[in-house]
Structures are given as C-alpha cells and as structure tokens.
C-alpha cells in the first residue's frame, strides 16, 4: 500500500500542469501539425516571458472554438487566431483588440486543390466543373479552409456547398485536407496557402497527384488578439508591450512556428471584410 502511494505521488508530479491564473497565458488555433505543439510554442512562451518580464505560458487546444472559448473565459489572455475565429473572439470578449498580424496575412489567399484523377487544371477563375465532385473544407471554424472558400462557392453557384457537391466534409485541419485530396478520399479541397507552401517545402506533397486549380482573391487572415482587461493584472501599457514584443520577434526559429516572415501591426477594423463575409453566408449572427 505504501509503495503504491509513493509510486502515485511520483506519477502525479509528471501530471500535466493546468492553467494557472498567475501566468500570462496564450494559445494558438490548431491549424496544422498538432503534435509537438508544446515544443513549438514553449519557445515562443519563453521569448515573450523574457521580453515582458512576466511568467508566460502556452496552453494547447484541440479546436478553433476551444481557443475562442478559452479567450472569452479569460483562461488565455492572448491568442493567435484565424480571421474568423478572431472576429468571433472579439465579439464575445468586448474590449479586446487585434494587435499584430503576420506579414503574409495582409494579403492571404486560399488554394483550391484537386486530385489529378479529376482532370481539373489551373485556371484564373473558379470553374463550374467542380460541381458534383466530392469536396472537403478544413476545420469548421477556419477562415481560409471554410469561410472564404464557402463564400466563393456560394458566389459562383448561388447555392450552399451541400447542394453543389456530391459530398462535403470537414477534414479538421489544412494538413489533413492536403492528405485527403492527395489520397483521393476527396476530389477537391480548400487549403490555407501558407500550409500548402510549408508542406511542399517539407516534401510532403506529391504534385503528380494533387495540384492547385484556383487561387482566391486576397483577404486578411491570422492575427494576434489580446484581451482588453490585461492592464488590470499586468499594469498600464501592457498591451503595447506585448505588441512591441510581437513586432520585434525576428528569430527565424520562432517565426517558423507560425510560419510567418515577420509580424506587422493590425487593428480590429482590418477584419471588417471577414465580418461581412461571415454574416453574408450565415456563419456569424
């Protein structure tokens, strides 16, 4: 009995530490490789900790909505959101603001990709020929994997995706969208261009099996959003300090976690287009 007790005490020290209210906590939406999230983002946490002079923690989440909920409930104070999730989060947590976006996020695009057996080729506009095929979005709450592609599909066909395609799925994240279209489980998919380029570089994409058929017009996407009440706990000007720390981040190793070239300033109004699109297709009330 005593030995069992000792063993369990030992085990309990390994147990995952839960969110601690004393630390400044941030999260990131899980849009690609979810393994080793800790290893990737703990480096970012220690960078921020050093720059801000306070304890900084990273908590991983499993879905876009969990990230928004954690932000709304003040379980995290800072988050790396997508366009749509950021708009949702700022709606639900009044006073919060977008403070920085990736350089690439100012003119983000979504790639429509297709399996080679569909015979679809690259084109300057979205082709009507995609109708009747099978199609996969990324996560249900994604901007590049759901909101924008759905907007363009509705624009072209004037119908909901369910009625355009023979089957519509949600892969969960962009990496999986690529894998599913490459394997032929789906004919067509919509994917975040940064993830596509990243995976291409990493040699995970076989271009004889899957290729880009259309590129959407640009729109604003990922951004850092901070809660409005952080000054109460960490002092006046804390938001500005966080913003500066983010803009000053220039270690390629850290930036590769996102992956972005650098961060630039952002404001809530930069995301008006996303809000409008969200309302127009009924994803936002």
């Amino acid at each position, binding site marked *: *009995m005593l030995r069992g007790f000792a063993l369990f005490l030992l085990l309990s020290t390994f*147990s995952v530490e839960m*969110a*601690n*209210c004393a630390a400044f906590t941030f999260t990131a939406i899980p849009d690609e490789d*979810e*393994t080793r999230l800790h290893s990737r983002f703990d480096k970012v946490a220690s960078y921020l900790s050093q720059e801000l002079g306070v304890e900084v923690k990273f908590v991983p989440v499993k879905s*876009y909505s969990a990230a928004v909920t954690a932000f709304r*409930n003040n379980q995290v104070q800072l988050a790396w959101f997508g366009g749509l999730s950021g708009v949702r989060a700022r709606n639900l947590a009044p006073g919060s603001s977008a403070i920085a976006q990736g350089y690439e996020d100012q003119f983000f695009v979504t790639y429509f990709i297709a399996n080679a057996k569909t015979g679809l080729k690259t084109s300057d506009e979205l082709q009507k020929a995609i109708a009747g095929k099978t199609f996969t979005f990324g996560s249900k709450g994604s901007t590049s994997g759901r909101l924008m592609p759905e907007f363009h599909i509705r624009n072209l066909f004037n119908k909901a995706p369910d009625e355009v395609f023979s089957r519509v799925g949600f892969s969960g994240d962009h990496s999986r969208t690529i*894998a599913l279209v490459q394997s032929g489980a789906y004919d067509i998919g919509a994917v975040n261009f940064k993830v596509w380029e990243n995976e291409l570089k990493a040699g995970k994409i076989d271009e004889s099996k899957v290729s880009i058929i259309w590129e959407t017009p640009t729109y604003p996407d990922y951004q850092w959003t901070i809660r409005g009440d952080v000054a109460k706990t960490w002092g006046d000007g804390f938001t500005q300090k966080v913003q500066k720390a983010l803009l000053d981040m220039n270690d390629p190793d850290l930036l590769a976690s996102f992956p972005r070239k650098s961060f630039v300033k952002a404001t809530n109004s930069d995301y008006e287009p996303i809000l409008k699109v969200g309302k127009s297709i009924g994803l936002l009330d």
Partner: protein
Amino acid sequence: MAKGAVTPDFFATENLVGTFFNTVAFALLGVAFGSIAGFFLTLVFHHRAVKVFCAFIRAIHELFWALIFLQIFGLTPVTALLAIAIPYSGVFAKVYSEILEEADTAPLRTLHPETSRLSALLYARLPDSMPHILSYTLYRFECGLRSSAVLGFVGLPTIGYHLESAFAQGNYSEVSGLLILFYLVIASMRWWVRPKLLPVYLFVSMFAMRGGAEINWENGYRFFASDIVPHPVRVAENFDLTTMMGLLEWTRKLIMTQAYPGLLETIPLTMIALVCTGVFALATFPLISPLFFGARLRLAGHIFLVIIRSTPEYILAYIFLQLWGPSAIPAILALSLHNGAIIGHLIGRRTEKHELRQDSSTGLNLYAFETLPAVYPNFMAFLFYRWEIIMRETAILGILGIHTLGFYIDSSFSDMRFDRAFFLILITALLNIGIDWFSGFLRRRLRLRTTPDDGKS
C-alpha cells in the same frame, strides 16, 4: 498504417506518463463521484421525477457533457470529472436500484415500520447486494477509462488528445504504441484495482487535480442565462409577439435544416448497426466457448474480443474513417465490432455452463440446433440493452463528420452557437430516452432477462 501497427513507438508522445496518469485519474474520480451520486439518487429513485431526471442525464453522451462544461470551466480537470460523473451517476442510479430491487426482501419486512429509509437500505438490502454492486462498479470503471480516453478528442489532456494528433499526422507507430499501452492498462486492472488501494488512488488523483479547481461562476451563469437562450429571445428587448414569431421561426428552421436531416441519418444508422452487432456477436461467441474450441484457441479468441471491445468505438470509427473516407460504413462497422464483441463475450461466457449430452452433435449442427436456441433469449436481451448505447454513440460519431445529429451539434459548438447546440442535445436526449423506454417495453413484453451486471452500460 499496417506498418505502423506492427512497429509501435511507445515514446513518441509528449508527456506520456502524465497523459496516462490523467486518463486513469479522470476515470477514477469521475466514476467514484458518479457512483456516490448514483447511490444517493438510488435512495429517491422510486420518485418518477428522479427516474426521468436520471434517464435524461444518462441520455447525453460524455463528449456532449464535456463540450458543455468546456464553455464553463475550460480545459480543466473539473470539466473531465463532471463529463464522466454526471452521465455515469444516472446509469449507476438505475442499475443500483435494479440490483437492490432484486435483493431478498425478507430481512426488510422484519424491520420496525418506523425505521428510516436509509437505515433500512443500509442494513437490510445493501450488504447482501454489495458483491453485485461492486462488480458492476468495477465494470463501469473500465468503461470510464474508455470515456476518459475519448475526452482527449475535445482537448482534455488524456490519451485521446495524442491519439487524435498522431492520427492526423499519420504517425501510426505512435498510434499503435498508445493503443497497446491502453490495452495493457485495462487488461492489468485486476492487479492494480484493489479496494484497499482505492482511497490512496483517489487521494492522489484529487491532489494532482487541485490546480485546475478554480471555478469561475460568471462563466457558468453566462452560459445558462445567456448563451443557451435561443438567439431571437436573447437579442430581443422584451418578449413580445415579434420575439415569439422569431423564436418559432428559429425552432422551425433548426428542426427542418438540422434536427430532421440528423434524425434521418441517425436512426437508420443505428438500426443497421444494431443488426450488424447481432450478427457479429453470433459469429464470434463460439470463439471463446468451450463447446466449440480447445483452451488454446479460446485464449486467442479472448484476446481478439478484448482488443476489439477495449477500443472505444469512437477510436475504431476514427481508424476506419482514415481508411475509407467519410461515409456511414466506418460508423456502422465501428459500432458493430465494439458492441458485437461485448455481447459475444457475454454470450460465450454463458455457454460455459451448458452441459452437453453424450450424443450431442458437433460443429455447425451443434451451433444451429442446440447452442443458438439455448442462448437466444439471452442474446436478444443483451442486444436490446445495447440499442440505446448504440444510439448514443451514433450521435457522437457525428463529430467525426458523419452527418448524424452529433455532426450538427458539433457544428453549432464550432460556430459558438450554444443555443442551437443545446436545443439539438435536448433532441438527442429525448430520442435516447424514447429508445430506452421502448427497448425496456419490448424486453418486458418478450420476457427477456439478463442478470443485472451483464451487458448494461
């Protein structure tokens, strides 16, 4: 994927020990609290309102409870604990009551009529039912481990969390490593689950979980007072005719575009899965029956069935979805294999007691003319019991992209539209209560009985 299965990697996972510790601790605390609450509910279970309440809380799947509590407590142990404890207490209340009802009533009748209910229960009924209750609770702890593992799929730090990530990345060696370790934890239960050690385990689990216990009541209040209030009512200034019409339209739209298509997918899926479950159970129970196979082959049969039934159906479905893409087939296969293995195991065990005549037939004739007729009533009873469980699971498989009710519930959670999610959860709950009632009715009608520790979960 096959290559990954035979080259398990046990150390690819971040914080492996902590992950397993959390999985076991959540299950232990969830089942312990569920069992205590269930016991107290048993005391008042004769009230109709309590029965309905218990039917309601157990009709909602652990994952849905988790999604609800995530909104209030975030990714904390409290969420995991409540997600397991609440539906389990509803199950415990029902099964404990059934066990106690079946206990000998003679001692109870000898008591003075003014004896309090609790004293009478504790002295005259509980002691002789205790072995039964303990073995059922232990069986539920095994279920609790599976539930706890699955909670990882919504982000709680149990093995489901890493399973999902590993699957997503195609790290099949990590997947098989995690699953093998999980089977070992379940298979070794009889050595480490000891009544004397339980207080120690519970204490250590509580101790390790204490960090997450900060509860923000504001979130809870907001969730119930605002988030789940239907949108037209929430945004209205006052409750007038326009609001009323808005609410009607909201309800109509939700039913026509989500609830109805969801039901249309959920019910046939359940029925097909139920039939396949029966077929699979009938095909596999001889594997562990001494009437058909020798000891060595039976051992192989046991291992086969243990592996299939220890894998949560959610995870089985996930594996099949990766293999064949999203359609109803992976869901049906997952549900049938998991539930069929459970029933096959129970029926196979039953045949151990059958005595054969000297001149009995062998092989297929033995199966068709002697064994099958003998186990059939039992088999049907188990199958009806699993009906409600299969329905619950069908709904939850929607999270994986099959368009059952669970798909629409998950979408509502993704869209942060908790009013819709809540409405749809109520519909699934009602559906489950309906099935539960109907299968109970059929069992009574057909006079099908099982012993209370078997097959119910």
